[in-house]
């Protein structure tokens, strides 16, 4: 059911682990299936994502989308990284089963949260949609984290 690309990322995920002293941390959870993802970014003074790492508790699709979103975001300016879409992720993976599309949203959510965290920590202007998204995701994440206590 999974493409070769998905299996490749699943078996050898890129950029997994933690970053020491990250510029931003994004945590996202999927209320429905219970997957959980942490994303760490290191941003330089030109607002470029120099390093990015993830930790994911979830299925093969969740792990593969996590891996591919780090590939897509690395080296991009934070503003550009926010433009990465679910379609971009799915395309880079050579497709995802319909029932797994929600996993790609998890990766995007975690990235958006990491950027939000970075902007907030550095007292930078936060785009309205990111602020709005953050409020929704924050609530979901708390719900999930409560489950794993």
């Amino acid at each position, binding site marked *: 059911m999974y493409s070769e690309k998905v299996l490749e990322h699943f078996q050898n995920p890129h950029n997994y682990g933690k970053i020491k002293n990250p510029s931003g941390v994004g945590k996202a959870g999927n209320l429905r299936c*219970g997957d959980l993802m942490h994303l760490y970014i290191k941003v330089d003074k030109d607002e470029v994502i120099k390093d990015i790492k993830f930790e994911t*508790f979830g299925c093969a699709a969740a792990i593969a989308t996590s891996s591919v979103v780090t590939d897509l975001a690395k080296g991009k300016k934070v503003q550009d990284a926010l433009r990465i879409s679910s379609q971009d992720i799915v395309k880079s993976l050579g497709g995802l089963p319909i029932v797994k599309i929600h996993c790609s949203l998890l990766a995007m959510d975690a990235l958006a949260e990491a950027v939000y965290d970075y902007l907030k920590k550095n007292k930078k202007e936060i785009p309205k949609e990111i602020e709005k998204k953050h409020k929704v995701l924050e609530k979901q994440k708390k719900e999930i984290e409560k*489950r794993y206590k």
Partner: protein
Amino acid sequence: MKKKRVYLDYAATTPVDPRVIKSMRPFWSEKFGNTVSLHSFGREAKAALENSRKKIADLIKAKSSEIVFTCSATESNNLALKGVVESSGKKHIVISSIEHPCIMNSAEWLKGQGVEITKVSVDKYGFVNPLDVEKAITKNTALVSVIHASNEIGAIEPIKEIGKICRAKGVPFHTDAAQTFGKLLIDVNKMNIDLLTACSHKIYGPKGAACLFIRQGVGLNPILHGGGQEFGIRSSSVNVSAIVGFAKAAELAEKEMESENRRLISLRDKIISRALRIKGAYLTGHSEKRLPNSASFYFSFVEGESIILHLDLAGIASSTGSACSSQKLEPSHVLLAIGLKPEQAHGSLRVSLGRFTTEQEVDYFLKVLPKVIAKLRKISPLK
């Protein structure tokens, strides 16, 4: 080099035993007759059918006239629930909360027809308390149906005791024995069973054959109408080769049951004791009162589909009740019923052994499993 493949999913299905294939072969092109035909071709097919019926009946101490062949355990279970309810005119049934989806969804369908469903809960091992069944039975109860042993956690239910209660209350008692027929001794009389589902492909027979035991005197309406085959209960041209294979498979299973179970229990217990050495590994179901061939676990902070896929990449076939692996994205209802939280069910794994499982295969699995769990934990944000 051919990739190593280890099949540890015998609870899902089994390969057909070569001896079974041999028994089936004449009934494809040589003795191909229709069992209802009067000529010699029909008669030899009919004789093979009745011979198979007797074999199956003998194995569970039933009469030949009490065995109706169907094409799957799902069909048998549908027939038992819908057929008995319709015939009784009563509007209530009792099932357990760990039934196979074909019982669950048949019950759900009946609910839509105005039938009330009581789902009896189970304890942390997955066992039904017969007293709960007793309490659930009302004057309006058409049927009680409790699975003989859980396909997911291996729990063997107190069928005899539940049957006794049903008998005393005058309510027909059905059990889904898809996982136990040919693996555990079944005596429908001693165990107070009125209807029983058994199937072929879980015991090295072909897919497409199963049966429903219906005790004489139990009312049941057909759901397939037609030429009146199978005592008018299940019209359809009879799949003779599959049924012959089913009976042969059942015969072999019974003959080899005792020694095979001893072998499987020892392999199963090796898997259980060794897998539980992994940190954050937990057994689901009971350590002893479980199917001889099934071991089930959950591992904290890793997800089941990922475990399955990594094992698969190492050539090992197994299964999970994780939400991610289901089309509905819901964790297994069985694992929730024994009190697991969704996140615990998330890391579930079932391995089931069988006739062709070797100790070497078990050792290979036990070598790969800790590595898979460690690899996934390394990626997981929860430690």
